[in-house]
């Protein structure tokens, strides 16, 4: 209470002083931030507006930022002439399976490392943690060999199978389970609940926030993933969106950037929807983890 009053007293004292000195500074700050956001948004706006120009005029300058005469044909063209629907479907299948897989494996392992006692728990957890810093490049060649030996090359399974569990997910879920008080368990045991019931109906629902963070980060990472699909897939009908779109860039040549950009925009839509739904979780997750796809 005392500190509160002194703090407000201070701010009252320094208020007029501040206003005079920073009034101009505030305007400059907002203008600079506005300029920065123009730079940050320009490529996305450019994608939208150019995707709506006719292929013929997609090169003409000046660029038309606001499409006054939108050409929706490009969107039909990407779906009709190039296998965008197939890319979209492949990306959806791969991402969906990986997200579901990681939610299950991470919830189970995170719970075990947080709340179940078993010999070797800390050593095993340390082992999991130590794999967090291993980059994809240090494992991808042997995984590629494994995939070929299992005759999974050029299948969607080659992308899904190695990504069904992650050290990051385990770590994240463990943190969430650790925050839940253990009193719940004692009460449930008195009621005669089994260990599985305690996990399933008490702790798992309380860790919803962690599951949401993990789902969003995993979705974003694997939907946009490029290196693994580029290496593991070889036929166009198996391509996921990023690899498919890059293959279009070469295939379509520079003749119709508006069609390629229509494809880029279509690939952005699901991520934007997920962001709108769960931006709170996404930001929170990035703060916790600091991992990117």
């Amino acid at each position: 209470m005392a500190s509160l009053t002194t703090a407000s007293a201070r701010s009252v004292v320094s208020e007029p002083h501040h206003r005079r000195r920073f009034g101009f500074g505030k305007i400059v700050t907002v203008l600079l931030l506005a300029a920065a956001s123009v730079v940050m948004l320009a490529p996305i706006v450019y994608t939208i507006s150019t995707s709506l120009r006719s292929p013929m005029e997609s090169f003409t300058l000046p660029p038309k930022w606001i499409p006054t005469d939108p050409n929706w044909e490009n969107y039909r063209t990407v779906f009709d002439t190039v296998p965008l629907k197939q890319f979209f479907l492949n990306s959806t299948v791969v991402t969906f399976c990986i997200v579901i897989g990681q939610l299950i494996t991470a919830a189970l392992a995170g719970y075990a490392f947080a709340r179940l006692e078993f010999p070797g728990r800390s050593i095993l957890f340390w082992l999991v943690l130590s794999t967090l810093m291993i980059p994809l490049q240090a494992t991808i060649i042997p995984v590629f060999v494994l995939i070929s030996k299992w005759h999974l090359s050029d299948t969607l399974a080659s992308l899904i199978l190695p990504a069904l569990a992650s050290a990051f997910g385990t770590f994240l879920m463990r943190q969430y389970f650790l925050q839940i008080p253990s009193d719940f368990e004692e009460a449930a045991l008195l009621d005669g609940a089994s260990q599985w019931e305690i996990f399933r109906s008490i702790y798992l629902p309380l860790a919803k926030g962690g599951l949401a963070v993990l789902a969003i980060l995993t979705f974003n990472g694997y939907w946009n993933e490029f290196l693994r699909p580029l290496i593991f897939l070889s036929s166009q009908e198996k391509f996921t969106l990023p690899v498919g779109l890059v293959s279009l860039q070469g295939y379509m040549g520079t003749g119709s950037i508006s069609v390629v950009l229509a494809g880029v925009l279509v690939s952005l839509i699901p991520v934007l929807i997920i962001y709108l739904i769960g931006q709170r979780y996404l930001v929170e997750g990035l703060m916790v983890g600091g991992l990117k796809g």
Partner: protein
Amino acid sequence: MATTTSVSTATIRSPRRGSIGWFTEQSLHGMARRRALLGYLFILPTMLSILLFTAGPVIASFGLSFFQWNVIDDPVWLGLDNYRQLVNDERALQSFVTTAKFVVLALSLQIVVSLLLALGVQSLKSNGLRFFFRTAFFLPLLTSAASISIVLAYMFNQDFGVINYYLGKIGIGPVPWLNSAGWALITIVLAYVWQQVGFTFIVFTGGLAGINKEILEAADLDGATGFRRLWDITLPMLSPTLLFVGVTGVIAALQVFSEPFVMTNGGPGDATRTVVMVLYESAFSFLMIGYGSAIAVVLFTFILIVTAIQFRLSHRWVFYQ
């Protein structure tokens, strides 16, 4: 700790299940065994996956780097020959230099820009403006680096790109963004930072929010304002966040691949050919599995060394509140 609490609950509780051996036993031991067994079952999928697809492959990469192998024929033992070849491979060595330049340029630009943006947004009073700027800076992070590189390559095009069009209006250019060896790496840095800056921005925003307000107010009273306040108080208080950003940023930037692959394919010449591009070409275009593994081992070693150095040096400048 939890076992002692479960003793009392287990003994209070009336037996519920029939006894089929040790597993269902209604005692402390039965309970502990069930918990332990459940624990192993729960971690089994994750442990299997990590052993098979992460821990095992890291060791295998190391092992494969001593062989010559094209996946089809039998591997041939080479000893250290792949590493000898690497030291004499001009193109591979150049890729390490290029990647190092990229890491320094990209990370410093990313840190400076995102810190300024975070400080700017933090100083705003309006929640609406804060939300708008945060979304704008964050949005690129949601895009796929590969797909957005297609867009950026069009925008940076020397002849029909929008960027040179506007620069031409103010009498600059045309800048050979992707066509000259000198400019191409800078363009790749700009593309990478454009996409990644939102991440460090969010992390710095979190770090700034964690700084004790009273200290800043005390500094205000003592007349420390503007740059002095930033340098003497905000930055030291932010040093744990800076360490985090530095470590994760170096690790991420060392692995840069999508932007140069899509925008320049390593060119002009080898000006933007990064380590991961050479690794990709060696292992997957030419099926030189052993040589590719040697590059992977060296890259991983660099990542470990840089991370260790950053943590080693951190006690000199990182200040924990």
